[in-house]
C-alpha cells in the first residue's frame, strides 16, 4: 500500500513536471481559462476579458500585497508591453523589439533576444511593442520594420523571419500576434503615413502567408463605394492592438484604426470602410463575415483599435453572444458578435462630435464650429488601453479620459511615400486663453504635472453593459493610459500616468490599496500563479513590478 502511494506520488510528480515542459498547444490556448496560473494570450484568453479566475488576492487581503521582485528595463520610453506566462516562465518584450524569458517567481532572466530593425522603420508614436504570442515551443513577434519573427522559446534564437509589409512605406507591427488554431495572425500600423491596412495570417512552421484581409477594400470590392476616387489607396486603417476569437463561430475580431489623412475627411468623402470599425473575419480564410463602423468619415483620429471584449449576456431575455466595446470616440457599445448587429451605444465621457444614433446604430454627427473644441479630444475617451470584463460582477471596465477636448484643424495634404499623411492637427483645448499652446496630455510629460486636471482627467469607469450606464467611477487627477485587470477575487488592478498602482473593489470602485511606483503605468496588469502563490505584475516607467500577498510567518 505504501509502495502504491509512493508510486502514485511519483506519477503525480512526473505528470506535474511533464506539465511544466508541456508545449502550448492551440487547444491549451482555447481552454486558457482552465489554467488561470498561466497567461497565454495578450488579453489572457480568446474572449479578451483580461479577467482571471485566480482569487487568492481578494477584497479582504489586497492591503497585504507586497513587492516581490522588479525588472529594470534596459531601454528608455513608455513600456506598453503585456507579458505571457507559461508554466512559470514569463515572456515579455521591451523596446524596440527585444524578447526576454525570465523566471516569473524570481525575475531572473533565462535569455534575451535582441532583434535589429532595418533602420528604416517609422512609427507615429514611439518604438512600441506590445508583446509576443506563443504556440508550441515557439514565440512570435511583429517588429517595427514590419517583419514577423519566430523565436525558439527555450533559447531565444530566431527560427524564421518573414517580411510582412514594406517599412519604406512606413508599415510597422507593434501589436502582439494572436494564435488561432494553426495560424499566427498580425495586423500592421502606419495609418498616419497613408498605408493601406491589413490583417494577415501566417503558418507558424515557416511564416508562409495563408490569408490577408485588407481593411480598405480595393476597387470594385464590397465597401469600395464608401470611398471616392483614389483616396482608398492611402486610406489607412491600421491594426495595432490584438484582436479576439470566438471558437464556436470561428470568427476572429479586429479593431481597425483611423482613416488617412487623419484629420481631413474632406479629402476622402464617404464612410471610409472599414476604418474605425470592427471586422469579423473567418479564422480559416480571412473572409469578412460582418463589420460595424463606429465613426464613419472620421475627422478626429478616433481609431477603433480597442480590444474586442467577448461576453455572453442575457440581452432582453435571450442569452446573446455579445461584444463589448469602449471606443476612442467616447461611446460604449454592445454588438451581437454573431452578426454585428448594434444592440446599444451610450457615451461614457463628454461627447460632442455626435448627438445620438439612428435606428441602425449609425452615429448622427454634429461637427463643431471651426476653432471650437470637440469632445473627446485627439487621444479619445479611451484609447488602446486594455479594458476588462468580469463575469462575476457583470461590469465592463474602461480607462477613460473625461472632460477632455481638442480643437481640430483640417488641411489638404498630398501623399508622399513614407511621409506623414495627417491633413491637419488636433490641439488640446486651452484652459486659459493666454496659455502657451498646451503640450497637452498626449505627450509623455515630465513627472511634474503642469497642465493639471484643467484639460481633462483620468478615470476607471465601470459600465453596466445592459444599460450603458456607469455603475461607479474611480476618478484620477491626471489622465491614464493603463489597462485594467479583474479577477475572481473581485479586485480590479489598474494604474495611471501618475504612477500609482491601484487595487479597487470591482463591485464598488472603492480603493483597497495603492502604492506609488514612480513612473507612468502604460500597459495592462497581468496575473498568474506559481506554487500556489498568486502574482500580479505591472509596468511602471521602465520597471516591471511584481506583487503578491505577504508570506505567512
Amino acid at each position, binding site marked *: 500500500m505504501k509502495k502504491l502511494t509512493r508510486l502514485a506520488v511519483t506519477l503525480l510528480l512526473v505528470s506535474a513536471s511533464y506539465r511544466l515542459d508541456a508545449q502550448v498547444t492551440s487547444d491549451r490556448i482555447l481552454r486558457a481559462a482552465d489554467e488561470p496560473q498561466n497567461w497565454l494570450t495578450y488579453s489572457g484568453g480568446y474572449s479578451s476579458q483580461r479577467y482571471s479566475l485566480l482569487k487568492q488576492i481578494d477584497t479582504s487581503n489586497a492591503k497585504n500585497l507586497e513587492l516581490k521582485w522588479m525588472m529594470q528595463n534596459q531601454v528608455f520610453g513608455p513600456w506598453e508591453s503585456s507579458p505571457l506566462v507559461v508554466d512559470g516562465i514569463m515572456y515579455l518584450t521591451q523596446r524596440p523589439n527585444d524578447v526576454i524569458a525570465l523566471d516569473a517567481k524570481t525575475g531572473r532572466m533565462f535569455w534575451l533576444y535582441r532583434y535589429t530593425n532595418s533602420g528604416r522603420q517609422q512609427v*507615429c508614436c514611439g518604438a512600441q511593442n506590445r508583446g509576443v504570442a506563443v504556440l508550441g515551443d515557439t514565440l512570435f513577434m511583429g517588429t517595427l520594420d514590419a517583419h514577423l519573427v519566430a523565436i525558439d522559446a527555450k533559447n531565444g534564437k530566431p527560427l524564421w523571419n518573414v517580411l510582412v509589409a514594406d517599412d519604406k512605406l512606413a508599415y510597422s507591427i507593434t501589436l502582439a500576434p494572436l494564435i488561432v488554431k494553426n495560424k499566427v495572425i498580425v495586423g500592421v500600423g502606419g495609418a498616419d503615413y497613408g498605408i493601406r491596412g491589413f490583417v494577415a495570417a501566417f503558418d507558424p512552421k515557416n511564416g508562409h502567408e495563408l490569408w490577408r484581409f485588407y481593411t480598405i477594400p480595393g476597387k470594385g470590392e464590397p465597401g469600395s463605394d464608401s470611398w471616392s476616387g483614389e483616396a482608398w489607396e492611402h486610406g489607412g486603417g491600421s491594426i495595432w492592438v490584438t484582436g479576439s476569437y470566438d471558437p464556436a463561430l470561428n470568427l476572429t475580431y479586429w479593431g481597425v484604426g483611423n482613416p488617412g489623412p487623419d484629420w481631413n475627411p474632406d479629402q476622402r468623402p464617404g464612410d471610409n470602410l472599414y476604418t474605425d470599425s470592427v471586422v469579423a473575419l473567418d479564422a480559416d480564410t480571412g473572409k469578412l463575415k460582418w463589420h460595424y463602423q463606429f465613426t464613419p468619415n472620421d475627422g478626429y483620429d478616433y*481609431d477603433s483599435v480597442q480590444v474586442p471584449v467577448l461576453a455572453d449576456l442575457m440581452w432582453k431575455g435571450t442569452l446573446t453572444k455579445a461584444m463589448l466595446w469602449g471606443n476612442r470616440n467616447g461611446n460604449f457599445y454592445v454588438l451581437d458578435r454573431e452578426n454585428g448587429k448594434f444592440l446599444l451605444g451610450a457615451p461614457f465621457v463628454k461627447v460632442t462630435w455626435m448627438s445620438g444614433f439612428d435606428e441602425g446604430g449609425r452615429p448622427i454627427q454634429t461637427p463643431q464650429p471651426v476653432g471650437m473644441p470637440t469632445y473627446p479630444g485627439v487621444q479619445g475617451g479611451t484609447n488602446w488601453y486594455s479594458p476588462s470584463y468580469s463575469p462575476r460582477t457583470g461590469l465592463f471596465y474602461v480607462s477613460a479620459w473625461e472632460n477632455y477636448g481638442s480643437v481640430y484643424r483640417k488641411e489638404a495634404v498630398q501623399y508622399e511615400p513614407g511621409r506623414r499623411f495627417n491633413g491637419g492637427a488636433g490641439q488640446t483645448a486651452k484652459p486659459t486663453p*493666454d496659455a502657451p499652446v498646451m503640450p497637452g496630455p498626449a505627450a509623455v510629460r515630465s513627472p511634474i504635472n503642469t497642465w493639471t486636471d484643467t484639460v481633462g482627467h483620468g478615470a476607471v469607469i465601470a459600465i453596466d453593459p445592459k444599460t450603458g450606464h456607469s455603475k461607479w467611477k474611480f476618478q484620477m487627477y491626471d489622465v491614464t493610459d493603463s489597462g485594467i485587470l479583474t479577477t475572481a477575487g473581485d479586485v480590479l488592478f489598474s494604474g495611471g500616468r501618475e504612477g500609482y498602482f491601484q487595487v479597487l473593489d470591482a463591485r464598488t470602485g472603492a480603493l483597497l490599496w495603492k502604492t506609488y511606483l514612480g513612473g507612468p503605468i502604460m500597459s495592462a496588469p497581468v496575473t498568474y500563479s506559481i506554487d500556489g502563490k498568486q502574482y500580479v505584475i505591472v509596468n511602471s516607467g521602465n520597471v516591471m513590478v511584481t506583487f503578491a500577498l505577504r508570506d505567512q510567518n
Partner: protein
Amino acid sequence: MRFRSLLGAAVVFTLAAHLAAQNAPQSQQAQSDHFVIETGARLYAGQCSACHGANGDQINGVDLRAGKFLTVKTDEDLAGVLASGRPAAGMPSFATLNSDEARAIIAYIRSAFDATTEGVTIGNAGRGAAVFEGKGGCTSCHRVNGRGAYTATDLTEIGTNRTPGSLLRALAQPAQALLPGNRTVRAVTRDGRTIRGRRLNEDSFTIQVIDEQSRLVSLVKSDLRTFELVPTSSMPSYETTLTADERADLIAYLLSLKGR
C-alpha cells in the same frame, strides 16, 4: 494615430522662443493696431493658409509664426516675397493685394498670428530691467537668474514661452493669464495649520507647493481638512501703476529672458 508627438509640443515652445526673438527689434510695424492684424488674419486664412497652414509651419524650413524664413529678414523683404512670389518653390505672386492688404498680412505674421494682440509695444529691455527690479517690484515675488524671491514663478526663461500679447495681458489682468499649474493653493490640515502656497505639482492623492515662506511642502490630501485653489492671482495688475512706456520696456525685458 495614437498620440500627438512629443516633438509637436517641443515645436510649439521653440516656436514661441523664435517669436520672442523676432519681436524684440520690431519698430512701428509691431504697433499695427488690432484692426489691421484682424484684417491680416482674414487675408491670411484666404490667401496663405492653404499652403503655409493655419499655423504657418507647413512649408519646409519656413515657420511664419515663429519668424523663421528662408531669406526674409525685414518687413520689406516680406512685402517683396508677396509681390513677386517664389516661383522656384511654387509660390505664386500676390501682386494683386493692395499695399494695405499686404501690410495687414505682414502685421499678422509679425504678431505671431495673435489677432487678439492689441498692438503690443515692445520697448527697451535695459530700461525694462530697471522697472523689473525697481518701480515694478517684481523681484519681491519673482526670481530671475538666481536673484529675487521664490514666491511666484521663476522668470529666467519666460522669453522662450510667452508671446508679447500674453505678457501684456499678464501685466494687466494677472488672474486671467495665470496658468492652472501655478495657482495658489490654500489648505488647512487636520491639526488646524493653514498653508498657502504656489502649486508645483499635484496628483490624485498628494499636492506639492512652495509656501509663502519659500518652504517646499508636500501634502497628503486625505490629511487635509480643507483644500482649495484660490481663483485670484496674488500678482497685482500693472495697468495703472506702470505707464504704457514702462510696460513696453518691461515686456521687452521679459522677452529677452531666455534662460542661462
